[in-house]
């Protein structure tokens, strides 16, 4: 069993991890290296502990809780690394160590219990303690060596989505390599010959394995960064799930009726806000391995689409958007200057993707006169409450005091300073604050006087009709 003291689980945030990685660059000799299929005996290997555990039983990896960095720390890391390290909200960045010319990483595939939001835990499949897997971060020109240990109950592989690499390193099981059987560790080695936002995900039983949560970011920073440095660089993986209300495990059989939608394995109100300082140059990176597209929309700003999977778009070709559709298999990066202080939603604009589970096959009560029959039904079915004739907002109001099905999030939730936010799923808030020094959650926005919509007594009598 792997404990949280092991090197691959103590992955701390960004620069801390990088620094620690350097300190940990011991030349461990792997006694099992000769047995590893496709391996070469001169390759160093991850510590022996990671081979432990029966195939499929899965290690108990618990991700550390990492405090948000201060602005000063981010600057120091940027100076140290030559790039602004990415932040994966509610996720982690992979630890690495230098081994001569190689940057070494280790992905462990296993089943994870992940809290999508308070009140809902999911038995997903992921890497290194969660889904999405740790964000791998490197620089154009690096040679990376990535160990992959399989603790799933079935074989897997890792495909490095969008990267230029030797054909045999592309990770397609059967076609390009043997499958990584449960309990086995494989190693992938290639040089990063491009920069951009990439992904990794299995290419073995991939429908099941991605439906259960297996994917992660692979960020390659350019060797020569742009002149204006990025202050905050976020990776967001929108994903959708079929976790039927009252169950715990994603159902890979579902093709269309997905009922749960997440940013980085969290559903609102479980998503953490993206905290930026006013006038920070912010980058948002998206990668989609789900079965449909997600038009991600930002409030109060417009962003420039600066990157595709193919790399940076020349500045002359940048286009401004407030919604950008991220289709299946795509990555995109958008940049914007967070010039407007406030709490700005960032969400998928497919409305059912920005709420939590609800039925889709029940009679529509809106506008029906159901008061009398509702009372009758309450007499027949104890606990029944007639709802929905005026719309569904009352479900969000009632969610707090009604007993919901087990392991099921209210379909609309979240309490804001003015009431119920009535959202769910792929929804988070970009918190832009003036003059902050820490990227910890600053709380709700303190609106300047006269800048909040208000109720008035007298509505115009002659404007709405003509």
């Amino acid at each position, binding site marked *: 069993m792997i404990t949280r003291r092991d090197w691959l689980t103590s992955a701390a945030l960004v620069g801390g991890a990088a620094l620690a990685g350097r300190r940990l660059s011991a030349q461990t000799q792997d006694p099992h290296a000769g047995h590893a299929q496709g391996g070469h005996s001169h390759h160093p290997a991850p510590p022996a502990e990671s081979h432990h555990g029966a195939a499929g039983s899965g290690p108990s990896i618990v991700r550390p809780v990492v405090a948000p960095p201060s602005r000063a720390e981010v600057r120091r890391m940027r100076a140290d690394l030559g790039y602004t390290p990415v932040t994966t909200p509610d996720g982690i960045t992979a630890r690495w160590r230098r081994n001569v010319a190689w940057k070494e990483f280790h992905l462990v595939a296993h089943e994870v219990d992940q809290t999508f939001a308070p009140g809902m835990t999911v038995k997903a499949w992921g890497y290194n303690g969660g889904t999405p897997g740790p964000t791998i971060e490197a620089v154009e020109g690096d040679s990376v060596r990535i160990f992959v240990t399989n603790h799933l109950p079935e074989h897997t592989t890792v495909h490095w989505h969008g990267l230029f690499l030797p054909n045999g390193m592309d990770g397609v099981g059967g076609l390009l390599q043997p499958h990584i059987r449960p309990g086995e560790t494989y190693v992938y080695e290639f040089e990063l010959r491009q920069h951009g936002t990439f992904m990794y995900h299995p290419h073995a039983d991939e429908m099941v394995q991605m439906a259960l949560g297996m994917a992660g970011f692979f960020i390659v920073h350019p060797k020569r960064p742009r002149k204006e440095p990025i202050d905050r660089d976020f990776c967001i993986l929108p994903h959708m799930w079929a976790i039927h209300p009252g169950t715990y495990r994603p159902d890979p059989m579902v093709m269309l009726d997905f009922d749960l939608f997440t940013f980085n394995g969290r559903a609102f109100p479980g998503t953490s806000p993206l905290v930026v300082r006013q006038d920070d140059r912010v980058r948002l990176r998206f990668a989609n391995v789900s079965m449909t597209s997600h038009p991600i929309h930002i409030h109060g700003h417009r962003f420039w689409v600066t990157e595709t999977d193919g790399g940076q778009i020349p500045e002359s070709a940048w286009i401004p958007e407030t919604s950008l559709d991220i289709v299946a298999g795509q990555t995109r990066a958008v940049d914007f200057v967070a010039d407007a202080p406030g709490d700005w939603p960032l969400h998928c604009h497919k409305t059912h993707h920005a709420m939590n589970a609800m039925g889709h096959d*029940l009679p529509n009560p809106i506008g*029906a006169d159901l008061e009398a*029959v509702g009372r009758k039904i309450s007499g027949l079915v104890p606990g029944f409450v007639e709802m929905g004739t005026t719309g569904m907002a009352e479900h969000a109001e009632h969610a707090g005091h009604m007993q919901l099905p087990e392991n099921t999030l209210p379909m609309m939730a979240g309490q804001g300073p003015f009431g119920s936010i009535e959202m769910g799923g792929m929804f988070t808030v970009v918190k832009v604050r003036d003059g902050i020094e820490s990227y910890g959650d600053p709380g709700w926005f303190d609106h300047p006087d006269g800048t909040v919509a208000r109720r008035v007594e007298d509505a115009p009598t002659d404007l709405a009709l003509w």
Partner: protein
Amino acid sequence: MRTPRKTLLAIALAASAVGCASIDPGPAVVATTGILEARGVSGVAWQADGDESGQIARKVEEILGQPVGPAEAGRLALLRSPHLQASLADLGVAQAALAQATRFANPGLSFAFLEGSGESQRTTGLAADVVDWLTQPLRRRLGEAELEHTKLEVAAALFDGVAAAELALIELQAAEAVAAAYENREEGAQAAAEYARALHEAGNLTLRDRILVEAAWAEARADGVSRREETERAREQLLRLVGLDGGTAWTAAPLARPHLLPSLDPGDLQEHALRDRLDLVAARWAVDALDRVRGLHRATRWLPVGVEIGVERESGGGVRLTGPTVELALPIFDTGSAMQAGYEAEIARARAQLAGLENRVRSEVREALAATASATDRIEVLENDLVPARRRALELAVRESYQMLVGVFELLEAKDQLLEAEISLLEATADAWRARVDLVRALGRTITSSAIPESKDPKSSEKRPEPSTGHEEMKHDHAS
């Protein structure tokens, strides 16, 4: 070896020692009551003189003042059932026949008046005083035997009448409980229909969908009508059995769980049944009686006076003795061997029937026990598993409805499934009661919650009937 002459002499001497039999059926009723009490059935009301004191009416009123359960229905039958009163009257008929048979004929004409299988049969006797005098003891014996037989039959009729009344009450309880559950189902279907109508009127449901839901309500209403009719049938059936008219106000107790039986050894119970079942007692009586008739015939076949006792088969398989007929004839050509062979065959038949009945009784006990056990098992599954599962499913569906995961139609369907499970439990409960009545019938005695009590089995009331062979000492009876 006893000679025919000696036998004839014995008959003559015996006859001289006895008088006429009483016409009072009271002792026969008491004896019959004793037979029933030995089998756990008490409270026989004999209304031969009507209910002048109003005692019976008061008891009936008292019973009807409370919700009526199976035991009370049985008591009502004993108090009021005209059928059972008619059966009791059979005792008077048999007693009268006995009294008549023991009378000495007036000079001239004489009649043998015999009662058999509810038909009176009048036979012209031989108009000879000496023969009448000679056969009087034999007639008395035969009459006494028939009276014993009648007591068994009446006791059996009363026992069965009580069981039938209990069963009818159980059917009424079950029908009423099921009808009430169907009324709940109807309410659910109505709510669904009203909901569908409101949705359709709001523009949210197609007309076809609305009509489908309304059709389901109509179906539920039709079912409800049928169920209510069943309660009326069950009620009338019971009223007929206990002899109440429709105007009397009373209610059946709600269908409750039958008390648990102690663990009963099936072998013991079969032995009990072989001892207690009145049809077995009657079948043994038949074998015995035929055996004695054969003995009598053999003993008198060389006499110039031929005594014949007829054997009538009853529809139930029993036998009834008729006669005696007496002929004056010299046994020159007919030595009675054919008649003797006939008696032998009748005996063989009665024995075979007895053996068959014994086997049937044992089988019926096992069957009723199996039915009891199976009803108990079903109750356990339904009560501990199915009904709680349906109830829990409904609760969880309600929770899901808060999330708009299920709609009203699914909720009402879950409620209907709960009602269906509860109806199954009611049916199983009624089956447990039905099996209980079957077991009582199979055992030939009532069973209590504590144990199967030992039969008191008073020998006096169930002594073997004795068609006289003339060999035994005769008992004195009330002189007429």
